[in-house]
């Protein structure tokens, strides 16, 4: 039996497919993002293997008597966290002698997750291989090499999207030099602090820590370091501070998500 063929002209085919492209372009990102997440979920194994291959190919040959850059960064970030913790404890003790608070992660748990894909340049985003099934939820903080790199932005059963703090749509409450402010993502693996008066002394290399957030973060954790500090173009009375992540996000193969333990 002859098969009936639907004949479409080249012009119409091109028009319809272009229209489909524009529908994808202007459809809500939450909807179109499901295609990308599904692709990442279906091909998670080959994607992870490919990422491991590229990471191992780009890893520099380390000498036996020196630590790797990554290990060095991890230790530096750990040191920064402990130092910030110590400073905060000292300030608390000075101000609130009768109100003792204890730093710790007693009420929190961590979920280790492998990075499936990472987009660092432009929009900062990771897709990780943990989801709702592992108690991940929107808003949870994500650590990479002992530093906060972003927050969980969307979750499905087995995967989650992490918005990096350098993403232009990301805003994060932070502490810097004893000040609380909001850090705005800038893209290109950078974030900006633009609400700090020039009367405050900010040095290049100053540590920026994520501010505590009830139910999500109970300790100051390093986010990044100041890499540039100049007077703002729009308002010279405010600093225009550039912050870069405390770890190389592009080279992360796994991250840890901070999860609140259920109350017993």
């Amino acid at each position: 039996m002859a098969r009936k063929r639907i004949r479409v002209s080249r012009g119409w085919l091109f028009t319809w497919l272009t229209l489909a492209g524009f529908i994808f372009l202007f459809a809500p990102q939450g909807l179109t993002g499901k295609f990308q997440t599904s692709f990442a979920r279906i091909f998670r194994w080959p994607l992870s293997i490919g990422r491991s291959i590229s990471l191992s190919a780009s890893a520099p040959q380390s000498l036996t008597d020196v630590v790797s850059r990554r290990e060095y960064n991890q230790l530096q970030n750990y040191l920064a966290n402990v130092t910030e913790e110590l400073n905060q404890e000292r300030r608390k003790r000075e101000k609130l002698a009768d109100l003792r608070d204890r730093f710790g992660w007693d009420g929190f748990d961590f979920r280790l997750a492998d990075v499936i894909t990472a987009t660092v340049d432009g929009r900062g985003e990771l897709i990780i291989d943990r989801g709702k099934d592992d108690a991940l939820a929107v808003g949870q903080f994500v650590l990479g090499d002992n530093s906060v790199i972003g927050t969980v932005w969307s979750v499905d059963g087995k995967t989650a999207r992490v918005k990096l703090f350098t993403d232009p749509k990301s805003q994060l409450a932070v502490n810097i030099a004893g000040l609380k402010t909001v850090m705005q993502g800038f893209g290109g693996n950078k974030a900006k602090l633009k609400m700090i008066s020039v009367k405050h002394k900010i040095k290049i290399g100053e540590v920026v820590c994520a501010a505590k957030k009830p139910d999500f973060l109970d300790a100051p954790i390093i986010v990044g370091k100041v890499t540039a500090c100049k007077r703002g173009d729009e308002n010279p009375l405010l600093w225009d501070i550039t912050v870069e992540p405390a770890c190389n996000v592009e080279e992360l193969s796994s991250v840890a998500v901070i999860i609140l333990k259920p109350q017993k």
Partner: protein
Amino acid sequence: MRWLRFAVLILLAAVLQAGAVKAVAVTRFNICPDLLLILLAFFAVYGNTFDAIITSFAIGFAADLISPVMGPQTISFGLLGTLLAYLNRLIAIKKMPHQAAVIFTAGILAGALAYWLSVLRGQPHTSNPYTAALWTSAYSGLVGPFLFLPSAWWMGIKTHHFGKYGS
């Protein structure tokens, strides 16, 4: 056109492009060849116009799946692939230097168009998009014509370089 083989090839290229291809990245900007761009040029050069339109949009969709935003690459690859297919009807692009030039030019134009569509969408863009498109296209142009041969073998397409693999 062997569509099942085409789907396997595109999925393989997308998976490799998302990860493993960075193993051959050069310079501190991590410039790597764009496998999907190479396949776009391949199907535009060796397919008929009707098939080239479908393959161009399908490859663009695959490129969008591994990009931050859905849509820009579907449109830019679809448009460039269609133009390339029509150009191939006028001027046969058979020699390797010509194929390299076509990949290079298509890469730059597709990259620029995708960038402006992302801006139109209001999405943040990469730093130095034109530089990235330029070097990615150059790298793709260099390696692309050599990847035409295994692609032609897999798709069972007869090329004058690989004459013994007929369909």
